[in-house]
């Protein structure tokens, strides 16, 4: 059997916030353990406040657990410092957020190239070719030189997806990627994820509260108060 790409062992996340009444400790994830397998298309669902976004950021190396271990392939990312995590995020992970978060000063093509050039994984020329290929894969070959503000919401999100694939990530992490889009564009984005998963074997983890969207994935992890309420495998 294949090794899991992401492995969580007793992960706990407690947020500490200071307020007038003193220090408030808020445990978002009490104790989580699960694996994500290579090539899986997983949806993390749950009501707001159930800790699904926190979980995604932990898996994406943007945040650190209060206790427990998180492995990405064989790297224990819960042990790494900020700069090491930055390298892992660049090289091994792809992110798509609810808002596209493209850099407004750069064209679609340049936005996709930036992660490739950031740590010098690809040369300038190679990066350009790859970015063109990725953008045509998301159906935006015509819009290479457009600035983000010249693109529609759906198009911007597709550029963001192309950017997340820039460095051939081990896993693509998406946080409510259709939360800001109409149903037509949501469907387009969904189809794109599905195609990436089926054709390229891309592992994808999506946080969503869109039940319809979630039902089309391979596996649904339903969170409730930071615990796994249901772990459904839908297709195989």
């Amino acid at each position, binding site marked *: 059997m294949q090794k899991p790409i992401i492995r969580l062992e007793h992960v706990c996340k407690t947020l500490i916030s200071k307020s007038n009444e003193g220090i408030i400790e808020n445990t978002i994830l009490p104790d989580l353990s699960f694996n994500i397998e290579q090539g899986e298309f997983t949806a993390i669902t749950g009501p707001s406040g159930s800790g699904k976004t926190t979980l995604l950021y932990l898996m994406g190396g943007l945040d650190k657990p209060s206790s427990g271990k998180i492995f990405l392939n064989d790297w224990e990312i819960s042990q790494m410092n900020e*700069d090491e995590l*930055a390298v*892992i*995020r660049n090289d091994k992970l792809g992110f798509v957020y609810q808002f596209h978060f*493209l*850099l407004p*000063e750069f064209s679609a093509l340049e936005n996709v190239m*930036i992660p490739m*050039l950031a*740590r010098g994984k690809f040369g300038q020329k190679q990066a350009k070719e790859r970015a063109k290929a990725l953008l045509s894969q998301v159906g935006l070959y015509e819009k290479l030189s457009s600035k983000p503000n010249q693109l529609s919401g759906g198009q911007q999100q597709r550029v963001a997806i192309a950017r997340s694939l820039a460095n051939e990530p081990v896993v693509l992490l998406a946080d409510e990627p259709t939360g800001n889009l109409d149903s037509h564009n949501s469907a387009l984005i969904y189809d794109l994820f599905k195609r990436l998963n089926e054709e390229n074997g891309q592992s994808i983890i999506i946080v969503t509260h869109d039940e319809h969207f979630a039902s089309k994935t391979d596996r649904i992890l339903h969170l409730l108060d930071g615990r796994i309420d249901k772990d459904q495998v839908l297709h195989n």
Partner: protein
Amino acid sequence: MVKVKFNYTIGNISLRQLTYRKRQTILTISGISLGVMVLISAISLMDGLLQSFIDKIVNIAPHIVISGEKIKTTVKDTLYQASGKTYINFIKNVERKDEEIIKNYSRVIYLIQKEKTVNVIAPVVSVNLIAKFGTLSQPLELLGISPELHDKIVKFSDNMISGKFSELERTPDGLIIGTTSASDLSVKMGDKLQIVSNSGGVVTVRIIGVFSTGINDIDNNAYVNLRLAQNLAGYSSDELTNLYLRVTDLSKDAAVARSIEKMINYHAKTWEETAASVISLYKMISVMVYFLVFFVILVAGFGVANVLITNVLEKYRDIAILKSLGFQRNEITWIYLIQGLFVAIIGAVLGCLLALVMIKVLGTIKITPSKTGSIRSDRLQMGMSIWYFIFASSFAIIISLVASIGPSRGASKLNPVEILRGER
């Protein structure tokens, strides 16, 4: 694994952000360049003023002036103790105030000649008398000189407007007058003046020349033959008020003056000592001007900080996304430091160019010469040195860099999770 890598992408992101906000960037660059320009122009103006003053003084003032004032050893305290006993010093209460005259001057010259670095020694009799012309009468400082020697001291013949300086040698009743005194008495070449001598007698002299040095103190004077001045002052032919010296090495004039003082027991003042009060006044004004201009650049520095702070504040989301895409802390810091540096360097270069123009323009402005100031000039004297530019530019760049550090580090410390979740 952790490397501080400065690469093309960081520079690219940095400058793109800067050029995206054109108006603000241009305003900030203008602020810095104006600051640099004002600083350089002010330095040039103050330096030029002081330099032209010193140049004129050096040209027109003798290197060392020996006066008739005797060096007296002063008793510090009337009561003093030595070998266990207390002594009382008595100073003669009624002391004749000697006229400050150098007596037996050929002997003094003989002594000074032992100092090998002294090139020229010229005798001078300076006396304050009343000059009359028609109904006008006016105090006039007469300097009795030996023209040939005096010319070697200060190249005086260069200052002549009309007449010849050397004529004085052969004209016992000749007088060469400075432009200021000439206009006060409204006299011109060839006019006859009457001088009232110390003994009350009246001597008639003829104006055989007019000079202008640009220094009012000197243009108030008139020159006559040494012998005539001695007569008017009532001195004998071996008495003088001053000796003017020229030395081979101007930078060592103070040492020469001190050693001469020891030899002859008369006070010897260098030109710096004579002009010390004016020079220190200039320097004080310069310091004040520099101080004010420093604030101009300081304000420009706040402009840089402002640009960076707004850039960082408006770019919270971009900074978060750059971090999530794998840019490290140091690299985020660089993105904003480069912006600060870029603005500062462009501003400094523009400021230097503007200052070049400014110095040229200021240098051509005609000003009405003042009669009361210490020097007269018909235009502003501007100094010029590469150091003005180096100093002003590096000052502006350092201030901007200091102003950039705070916002840049602030940006690098942002927590991307808070921003991506919309908490900030």
